[in-house]
Every structure is written in structure tokens, then in C-alpha cells.
């Protein structure tokens, strides 16, 4: 079973991500900010990280930067799932090491399609 880490400070959003992905067999672990996400990622190897950008304590771009310094996450797919839609932010995301950019609100079927495409 593929393991996904969903990082978002909004509990309702995490609920919806987990609901959409668990129903098709993915194992989803939730974290409420970048600090918790990074700690969980160090404890356990995930196949995909889905992260929000604007979060307290540590934002998504910082989390991606930190994850990319870990050898075990050098090539792990990381997708941003955020309300941020500016080209400037997308460029920063790409530079930090994100593999894709999804704008909220997400359509569950399209999210699934992307996840399947990225990790199978």
C-alpha cells in the first residue's frame, strides 16, 4: 500500500484529502504544519508528500526545501496543494523542489488521477 503524507493546517482540508485518497487504497498520514510534517517524514518513508503553502510554524516551501536535504526524500514526489495560484509562487515551488502544483479547491477525481500518475 502506497503511503502519502498530507500536510495542511486546515483540518477540514486534511479530512477531504484523506477521504479522497483512502477510499482508493492509499494510506494517508496527516500533519498540521511543516514542522510536524518534517518530523513524520524523518520517522517514516512516504511515497508522496502533499503539502499546503501557508501554514503556521513552517510553510510548504520551507518544508520542501528541508525534505530535499534528506537523502531519502531527494527523489520522492512532492506536490503543493494550495490556494496560491500566482506564477511567482509556482516558480518558487519548482525551485524548492516541488514536482507539481494543485490549486484548491481540488476535485477528488482529478486529485486521484494525479496521484496515480505520480506514484501509481
Amino acid at each position, binding site marked *: 500500500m502506497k503511503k502519502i503524507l498530507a500536510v*495542511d493546517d*486546515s*483540518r*477540514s*482540508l486534511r*479530512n*477531504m484529502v484523506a*477521504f*479522497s485518497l483512502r477510499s482508493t487504497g492509499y494510506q494517508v498520514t496527516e500533519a498540521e504544519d511543516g514542522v510536524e510534517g518534517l518530523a513524520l517524514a524523518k520517522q517514516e518513508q512516504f511515497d508522496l508528500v502533499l503539502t499546503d503553502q*501557508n501554514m503556521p510554524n513552517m510553510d510548504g516551501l520551507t518544508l520542501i526545501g528541508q525534505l530535499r536535504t534528506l537523502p531519502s526524500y531527494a527523489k520522492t514526489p512532492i506536490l503543493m496543494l494550495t*490556494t*496560491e*495560484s*500566482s506564477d*511567482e*509562487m*509556482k516558480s518558487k515551488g*519548482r525551485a524548492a523542489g*516541488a*514536482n*507539481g*502544483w*494543485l*490549486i*484548491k*479547491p*481540488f*476535485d*477528488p*477525481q*482529478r486529485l486521484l488521477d*494525479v496521484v496515480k*500518475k*505520480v506514484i501509481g
Partner: protein
Amino acid sequence: MDSIRLMTLLSGRIQSSLSKSTKDIQQVMSLLDQTIDQLIQHFLSINMDLQQLKNQVPEQGATSALSHCENAIQSIVTDLQFHDIANQLLNRVQGRFSSLQNMLSAIAADSALMTTSTDQINFTDLTAYLECIERLIADTQSQSQNPVAETIRQTPMSGGEIELF
């Protein structure tokens, strides 16, 4: 002197109004949190019932109704995300209110100093006072024009764009 007293009075009134509005926003956010939690619980419960119904052998007429329900559930997953977007927008409004309150506090404090420390106000004092207000306004504007402040563009609750790098 009268103009400074007027400024002090106005600052106090506006601050009081902003403070009440901030409390209203906090109450809205709290209500939103409670409501969305309940909605999600009901939503998950309905979905569980639906899955159980699907596992039973449905009558022929019920199959299309179940399919219709499943499509509706997919749409609800998108619709429920309004909570996250609404919260972000309300947080930004709170941030702007806070900046304005800080600015008004500074104006009120300066005005009080000027009205109590000297009986005669001169042109230099007024110029310095106006410069101080200009700086405060500029600071407030720069805080509210944070690069992320304009990036929530979602108006309809349809699925957002997806881009793989």
C-alpha cells in the same frame, strides 16, 4: 490643538468599531469551525451508509440513484473546501484590522502626548506629527500588501488547476 483632539476622538471611535468587528469575525470563524466539523461527520456517515448499500445487491432502479449519490459526494468533497478558503480570507481581514488598530493606537498616543506636553503647538510639531502619520500609513499599507494577499482568486467552488513540473 482642536484638530489633534478631533484626531484622538476619531481614532478612539474607529478603534472601538474595529475591535467589535474583530470579535464578530472571530465568532464567525468559530461558528464556521463548528459547522464544518458537523458537516464532515454527517458527510462521512452518509458515505459509509452509501458504501454499505452498494455492497448489498441493489434493485435495478436503485443502481442509478446510488451512482447519482456517489457523484454528489464527489462534489461535496470540493464544496467543503470552502471552509479552508474562507478561513484564509477571514485571517487576512483580521490581519488588516490589527494593522489599522496598531496605527490608530500610535496616532492616539502621539496626539495625547502633544495635547498634554505643551500648551502651544507650533508648525514644526504639526509637520512632525503628519510625517509620523504618513509613516504609519505606509507601514500599514506595506503589511497589507503582502505578496500572498492577492493570490486567493477562487470565486466559483469548482476544482482548481493542476500543473505537473
